[in-house]
């Protein structure tokens, strides 16, 4: 039995190590708790430390794990896991593991001790371990007691020390309530309180016995009398957690299970079967399950076959990536035409929305025929990633006259002809069309659209020419949202025409740096689009003070303005930023990486932009405390990103923290302040009693910018938004890499503060000098 267990463990370990070497986030599901345990075991195996010390460390790790409720929260848990992995020197661990599977075998008998807390694990998580281990774990029940009514001020070590009066304690677990988390980063304190129930494992059964027989007086700790009861493992049928008001009953285990038992057997002997559930409830259960599970249930029995079939009518939308539990279709088992057929023949006519984006598939023209045959009522369709012949696209388009939303993203091979026929059949009814990243498209198909078109996304369609946009302006005059990032063939005349004919236009984006046929004068036409609500011009070098001033004067409805990295240091000056400050209705502003953002202009912004909710100030290197502190006046602020603005210190951030106290009466949103890459010292920040959450990541790196621009939704100017599954993964990898890299850099910087050769004044001088040399400052 040991061999099998350690085999399954070493599987998990291998996957864990893959996590470490490649930081693949796709290990999300597999890695979780088993990985964590193995990590502990692996540390055992190799590093020739005395077992005692190692054991202690593992205990702590394990305890932490329990507190985290077994890595349930991916982001936070992963963060802290990595922090701890670094602490344990993962490199060593990895080297160790490559040759120490055998070594590990020696220590396998210690595993049950690590797994001792049967209470905290449920079956699913211990499944990786064989029965022998589980048995050893439960045989320890005699040595365990449960203490309830534990004062919330008691810490596990204190409790452990307290119980040593009855005998040696080998482990003491005091789980915490899963309270509000203050931060996703492990460095921040966790303000959760203990739930008042502890499990204490004694070295011997006598100790447990003594504890159970102790008088109430003996059990008084921190003014609260604890109640000690025998431990009943959940595996053996107890309730797992005993409520605090249960009577103190030493060996009557029955009483602990009584309340649920009486319920189960209360209505006489007959047992409820799932078949007795109301059919509507059953269908609801099925509707919550991934597609392949719903189909698998058909084989259980006749009633469930029927229920399973019926449950499809509740499903009007299928996104295969999400609904089919995307780990099901992998590179070795991609979604094939026949799978799609099986799914669609069940969902059939009820389906309104189908999303094939992101799934690993082998779909082709035939798949489109299947969709065309089976789903006549589709309203929304995302075909991104499905290559097909022109004929099949045409057929599909003609059978779906009711289609309103169509996505066909990143189809770099789709030529004008294919898109023409894809859109032709249903062009006049379409409302939302997303063709981002169709690089070969010249845009002849744009003339097909009619007045129903509301949103058109053409980011990265760099061959869409001026004629196509003229056609669009003529045909689809009611367009509300037009995203034209990197449509570099745009001309001044196009913008002029848009301003004239697209009277409803609310959202316009023109991000990107190579609009060779546009001029500053051309951009001025934007000021005539008086219904604009959102405007993004990131990385657009043509933006200047004049443009900002006329925008400020002419766009009364603008709520979101994004001009990060726009213009040049000469073209955008304090005058431009002050023009932005005059647009008092603005709610979201991104002025990252602009040299013109200085204290004076920010004070002005804070004074006038009362509705400000999101403000991005990344890499504003001239911005100091004075400007940031002024933002305390913006009471509706939700998100402030200061990453990379290196002159900002804790003083300013603390002012903001104070300005947003947590109010009990009305629940107001948390205010996130990102301070990575600034001079903010975490030790000087006090967030208690405030609804501000400090985020120590630095989004100002290239990676961060790319990811966050799309996150803000205002601008995807840096690159076409990658929508394929694989590229998404890479993206998160990169993010993660840069995140941890920055974090460790930051932590090192904080730890080694004394080593810094410059004091603050010198640093300012140095920064100024550098700036002068670079011509940024006169």
């Amino acid at each position, binding site marked *: 039995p040991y061999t099998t267990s350690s085999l399954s463990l070493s599987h998990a370990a291998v996957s864990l190590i893959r996590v470490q070497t490649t930081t693949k986030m796709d290990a999300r599901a597999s890695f979780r708790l088993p990985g964590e345990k193995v990590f502990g075991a692996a540390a055992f195996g190799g590093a020739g430390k005395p077992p005692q010390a190692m054991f202690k460390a593992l205990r702590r790790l394990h305890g932490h794990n329990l507190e985290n409720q077994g890595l349930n929260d991916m982001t936070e848990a992963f963060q802290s896991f990595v922090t701890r992995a670094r602490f344990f020197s993962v490199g060593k661990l990895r080297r160790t593991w490559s040759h120490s599977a055998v070594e590990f075998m020696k220590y396998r008998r210690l595993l049950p001790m690590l797994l001792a807390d049967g209470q905290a694990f*449920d079956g699913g998580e211990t499944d990786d371990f064989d029965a022998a281990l589980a048995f050893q774990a439960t045989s320890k029940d005699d040595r365990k007691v449960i203490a309830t009514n534990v004062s919330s001020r008691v810490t596990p070590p204190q409790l452990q020390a307290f119980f040593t009066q009855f005998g040696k304690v080998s482990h003491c677990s005091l789980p915490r309530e899963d309270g509000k988390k203050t931060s996703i980063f492990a460095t921040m304190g966790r303000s959760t309180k203990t739930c008042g129930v502890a499990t204490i494992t004694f070295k011997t059964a006598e100790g447990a016995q003594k504890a159970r027989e102790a008088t109430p007086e003996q059990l008084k700790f921190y003014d609260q009398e604890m109640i000690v009861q025998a431990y009943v493992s*959940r595996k053996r049928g107890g309730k797992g957690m005993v409520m605090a008001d249960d009577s103190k009953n030493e060996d009557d285990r029955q009483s602990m299970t009584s309340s*649920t038992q009486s319920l189960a057997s*209360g209505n006489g002997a007959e047992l409820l079967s*799932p078949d007795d559930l109301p059919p509507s*409830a059953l269908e609801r259960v099925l509707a919550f*399950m991934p597609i392949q599970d719903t189909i698998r249930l058909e084989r*259980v029995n006749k009633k469930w076959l029927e229920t399973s079939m019926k449950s499809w009518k509740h499903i009007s939308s299928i996104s295969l990536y999400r609904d089919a539990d995307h780990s099901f279709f992998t590179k070795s088992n991609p979604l094939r035409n026949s799978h799609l057929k099986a799914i669609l023949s069940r969902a059939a006519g009820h389906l309104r929305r189908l999303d094939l984006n992101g799934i690993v598939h082998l779909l082709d023209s035939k798949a489109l025929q299947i969709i065309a045959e089976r789903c006549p009522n589709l309203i929304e369709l995302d075909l991104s990633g499905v290559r097909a012949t022109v004929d099949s696209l045409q057929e599909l388009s003609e059978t779906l006259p009711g289609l309103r939303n169509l996505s066909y993203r990143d189809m770099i091979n789709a030529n004008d002809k294919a898109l023409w026929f894809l859109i032709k059949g249903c062009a006049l009814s379409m409302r939302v069309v997303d063709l981002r990243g169709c690089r070969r498209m010249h845009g002849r198909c744009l003339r097909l659209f009619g007045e129903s078109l509301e949103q058109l996304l053409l980011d990265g369609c760099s061959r869409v020419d001026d004629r196509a946009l003229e056609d669009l302006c003529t045909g689809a005059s009611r367009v509300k949202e037009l995203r034209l990032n990197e449509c570099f063939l745009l001309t001044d005349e196009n913008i002029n025409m848009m301003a004239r004919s697209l009277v409803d236009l609310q959202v316009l984006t023109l991000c990107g740096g190579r609009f060779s046929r546009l001029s500053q004068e051309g951009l001025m036409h934007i000021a005539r689009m008086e219904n604009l609500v959102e405007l993004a011009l990131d990385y657009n070098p043509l933006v200047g003070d004049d443009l900002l001033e006329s925008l400020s004067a002419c766009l009364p409805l603008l709520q979101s303005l994004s001009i990060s990295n726009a213009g040049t240091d000469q073209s955008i000056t304090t005058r431009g930023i002050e023009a932005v400050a005059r647009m008092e209705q603005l709610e979201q502003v991104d002025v990252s990486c602009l040299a013109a953002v200085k204290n004076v202009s920010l004070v002005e912004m804070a004074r006038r932009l009362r509705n400000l909710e999101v403000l991005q100030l990344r890499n504003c290197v001239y911005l100091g405390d004075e400007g940031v502190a002024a933002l305390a006046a913006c009471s509706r602020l939700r998100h402030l990103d200061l990453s990379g603005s290196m002159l900002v210190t804790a003083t300013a951030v603390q002012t903001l923290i104070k300005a947003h106290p947590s109010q009990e009466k009305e629940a107001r949103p948390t205010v996130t302040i990102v301070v990575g890459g600034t001079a903010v010292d975490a030790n000087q920040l006090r967030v208690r009693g405030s609804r501000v959450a400090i985020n120590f990541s630095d989004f100002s790196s290239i990676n961060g910018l790319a990811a966050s621009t799309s996150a803000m939704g205002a601008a995807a100017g840096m690159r076409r938004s990658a929508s394929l599954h694989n590229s998404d993964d890479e993206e998160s990898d990169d993010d993660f890499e840069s995140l941890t890299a920055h974090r460790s850099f930051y932590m090192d910087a904080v730890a080694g503060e004394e080593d810094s050769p410059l004091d603050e004044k010198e640093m300012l001088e140095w920064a100024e000098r550098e700036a002068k040399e670079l011509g940024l400052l006169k």
Partner: protein
Amino acid sequence: RIYPLMRVTLTTSDGASVTVSRQLTKHSGFIEKAITDMAVDDNAVPLSAVAVDVDDATLKLVIEWLTEHRDDALPYPEKTDEERRADDIPAWDQAFVQKWDTKEDQQQTLYAVITAADKLDIKGLLDMTCKTLANKINGKTVEEMREILQLECDFTEEELAEIRKENAWCEN
């Protein structure tokens, strides 16, 4: 319309009666409807009694859940298709359900609460318990599913073979 001070007496199927605040019962479509049907004139409803077809023990659990969720938004937000997922059960609810998860119980409590939630029309509780059940079945083999649900297979061998052949792709 909320009447926070009003109380409702619920009579269970096994004869017990519980008095609860209207603040809790407003989440139950069934009780709310029964009360409004009873209210003949607008403001003279001092105390209402409603008979519910739920046994006492189950009703206690339902009330425990309602007490925790008394401040939930009403009307219950209808799930859009994007939210059709079972892994978003709040921590308190998870712990609440986990208490029933014993060997003797065999999901009896869960079934009872699902049925009660359906009868009383408490959408939040129904959703949560249905998700819990869905989570128990998710990703299991057919045999495991039968075991969890304690169901007999009533297909003939041929039928079974046919379905298996058709659905072979979704077996791992």
